[in-house]
């Protein structure tokens, strides 16, 4: 089994936290993994991305080759499209929050973005912000998107939940539960499609 994931968004939206949780779950499952991420200057409101590779065999490159990514997991719709050259044209999935984060003057018209998503065979574009808020976890958009993507990750939801416990344990039970609820709510979206 081998799965290549790009997690993306804008600095501060939690894309890198999601990457850390998948990595932890994969490590608990005894899989090989490599995860490359953006640090430094570009985190200041710029686009951030993480290449996450999981496999039952040793992995060579830290970066995913173009055209081979299985899942693009994005907390922002335009950011998901930035990584299309990496997506596997036939079998790849895009799972993305549909709400734009507009911090640039030339953010494109949403109709253009929606039309582009329609061209992609496998995608889930949904209002993850709303689901996060409904679960009293306005900051949990990233967990909702991760929950929706979990259906295609090849990692059981309970493994991800354990990883959330390990990652957020220090912050107390309330935060752990809020994030687990967000994960489950996201998964329910994917299951209902």
């Amino acid at each position: 089994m081998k799965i290549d994931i790009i997690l993306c968004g804008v600095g501060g939206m939690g894309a890198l936290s999601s990457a850390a949780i998948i990595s932890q779950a994969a490590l608990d499952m005894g899989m090989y993994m490599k995860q490359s991420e953006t640090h430094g200057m570009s985190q200041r409101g710029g686009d951030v991305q993480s290449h996450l590779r999981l496999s039952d065999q040793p992995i060579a490159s830290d970066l995913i080759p173009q055209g081979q990514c299985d899942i693009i997991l994005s907390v922002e719709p335009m950011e998901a499209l930035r990584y299309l050259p990496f997506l596997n044209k036939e079998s790849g999935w895009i799972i993305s929050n549909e709400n734009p984060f507009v911090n640039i003057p030339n953010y494109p018209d949403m109709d253009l973005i929606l039309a582009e998503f329609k061209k992609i065979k496998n995608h889930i574009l949904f209002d993850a912000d709303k689901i996060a808020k409904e679960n009293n976890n306005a900051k949990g958009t990233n967990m909702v998107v991760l929950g929706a993507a979990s259906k295609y990750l090849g990692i059981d939801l309970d493994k991800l939940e354990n990883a959330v416990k390990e990652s957020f344990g220090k912050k107390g039970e309330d935060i752990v539960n809020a994030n687990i609820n967000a994960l489950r709510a996201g998964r329910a979206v994917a299951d209902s499609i």
Partner: protein
Amino acid sequence: MDKLLLLGDEAIAQGAIDAGLSGVFAYPGTPSTEITEYIQDSKEAHQKSIRSNWACNEKTAMEAALGMSYAGKRAMFCCKHVGINMAADPFLNSSITGANGGLIYVAADDPSMHSSQDEQDSRFYGDFAFLPILEPSSQQEAYDMVHYGFDMSEKFGLPVLMRITTRMAHSRAAVVRKSSSREQNKMKIPEDRNQFILLPVNARRQYKELLAKQDGLRKASEDSVFNQYIDADNKKMGIIACGIAYNYLMENFSGSKCPYPVLKLSQYPVPESLVEKMYNECESILVLEEGQPLIERLLRGLLNKGKKIMGRLDDRLERTGELSPNMVGKALQLNIAEGLDVPSFVAPRPPKLCDGCPHIDSFLALNEAIEPYGKGKVLSDIGCYTLAALPPYNAIYSTVDMGASITMAKGAAEAGLNPAVGVIGDSTFTHSGMTGLLDCCVDNVPITIMILDNDITGMTGSQKSSATGRIESICKGIGVDEAHIRVITPLKKNHQENVDIIKQELAYQGVSVIIPRRECLVWAAKKRKMAKNNQN
């Protein structure tokens, strides 16, 4: 067996803790910062009393590391690639003194300039200084190489350069830890009292000794577990793959063997006998280097009249930027998968100053105060405030190297630019701005320096600044007239008052320092979080 999930940077840090490190010395710089931060946050490092505070700059850091090595203990210095420029003096001269306790210099290069102003390849520095270089291809190798590097440093009596690049620094993988960690060295001053006295008479002798060590270093490279010659049947081409370039090569043959002979290269000086074997047996050689063409140039020579050598200097690989699996696949002339194009409407999202950042208020006030004098009067520096070069601020006209705001503004003032303004951050000021300010005072140049004090080293992610609480006394001590050291609070409500103060100092025909002081928001949020966690 202890298995950890670590960034390349963290693997180096853990490796050092386990290899008997006594101190790490560094100034923050992407992509190297996390090495020192990991040691600062490590309980184990605290228990072992490993020193890890940030230094003022890379030169003071490297010299302190050399001092710890002088005293017989194992020391590590870390920086981003351009940090080696700052520390070039101790770097080159410490190859002549050599090391006493194990000494590793880590340089984290940034090809493609993700967070940098150039993409210099630190291997050239290692070659220049005749020092051995280690270039890991995996996080596990990074961990293992620290042990190996310290042992090697003590065996040869030389500092060892460890060179990584952004993808190694900031990529995470599982690392198996050694079962036991080594004790720290006891203090022991050098047996030869002349070793660190670089009087010409000693330096001439030791330089010859350094050159005499090169055969041993080359032999160590040829025998190294980190360098492997992997033979194959197709001799049309041999491939030399350095550091993580080896991973990109193997990615293109995932699940199978590379059909061409491969030299996986992670230790320098270049293992000549292995390269010679490849040159003799193969029709041509492809060189894959993450960075600038060091080995490719050596192999081509000036006239390039030997066998065909391919890489960045012909059209096989792009001349600049970091490598990728696809770039390497193309260089191998393989049929590689193509993805979809990025839709043309996808807009770049450059980094920008955070909403509410104190620098915004500082630049808005400066822009208004300087407007009557016209454009091109503000020279600046390296930090978050460099982003003021972009719209909507368009406030600064230079960013070259740490500290250059003050000294370039001085030179421009001496050419007649008036007013001449230097804008620098608090941490950059104590890194390399203080000596330039002394030059200004000695020459009494008409200049206005703005030291943006946000209480922290901001751009690299909130590291303690050596300047905190000291800026006014430093400026006064250097010789700035107290009446022209002005502290302002960059807030919207103070805008008019701040504009007026800046105008007064722009008009003053001597050295003045304005200190806009307000805490970095990212740092303030982190402090609140830490306070909350401490309560729990």
